[in-house]
């Protein structure tokens, strides 16, 4: 067996599907965020794998660095929203909160 691009793409497809399932099936807002992180990591693996196996310099790695930074910003804002939601509504379940402000 020779490890090539398809193996990495398969791993990242599995990671993306699992993240999608977590986003769609979890009630806890933090669990939904974890699913989003899984999907972002899947895309990152794709970026780095393409930059390794398809000859176009280092652009893929730079793009994945940007994705990591944006994921950190997204996590900070999302977790602040979850904490505000917990303080105002007493729950972190995404389906019981139905208004933007109380």
């Amino acid at each position, binding site marked *: 067996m020779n490890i090539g*691009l*398809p193996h990495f793409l398969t791993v990242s497809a599995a990671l993306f*599907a699992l993240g999608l399932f977590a986003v769609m099936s979890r009630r806890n807002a933090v669990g939904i965020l974890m699913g989003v992180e899984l999907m972002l990591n899947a895309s990152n693996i794709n970026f780095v794998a393409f930059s390794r196996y*398809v000859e176009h310099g*280092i652009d893929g*790695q730079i793009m994945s660095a940007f994705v990591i930074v944006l994921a*950190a910003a997204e996590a*900070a804002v999302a977790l602040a929203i979850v904490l505000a939601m917990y*303080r105002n509504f007493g*729950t972190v379940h995404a389906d019981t909160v139905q208004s933007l402000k109380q």
Partner: protein
Amino acid sequence: MIGDLIFVGLALLTVVPAVWVAFSPNIVHAGFSLLFTLLGAAGLYAYLGADFIAVTQVMVYVGGVLVLVLFTVMMTRVPRTGRRRHGLDHYVPAAIFAIAVFGLLYKAVTSVQWPARDFTPQPTTAEIGTNFMTNYIFPFEYVSLVLLAAMIGAAILIREHRGNGEKGAAEGVAAGDVTQEAEDATATPTPDEEVA
């Protein structure tokens, strides 16, 4: 041969805990499984010769985002009783959709003849830094602005409203669905109620 085994190990380290992240009924277990998934992804980056991205992954994701996620999980404990998830009406469509997406992606991956170029790993940090300062100078500055805006936004979102804290907390509990979560919120005083 050794390289193949290392890849298989890293792929399993990435995917198997991800299954637990998606399916675990306990959100704390899911958070700690996410740790192994992120470390496995960092290992895959290192396997692909992207040393800078691998180190950044460990520092930002494992050291920053994951700690933030676990803090939030532990600051917002919900009671273990009651429904942990959506009912079957959400579970089945999610499973069907996820399997369909994976099938589509797998079909796309296997139906294309991908190029495979020879490659000797080289340090990438200097090249990435040069690119940040030359070709990618505008996205680099822009993303730093986004990070600053996100930080300010998070601080504003999490700020306590001392003026109408009492009214807000009482209404929030009353307006929420009559569930055990709402009862739990009244049992444990929130910071707003302490101010009142």
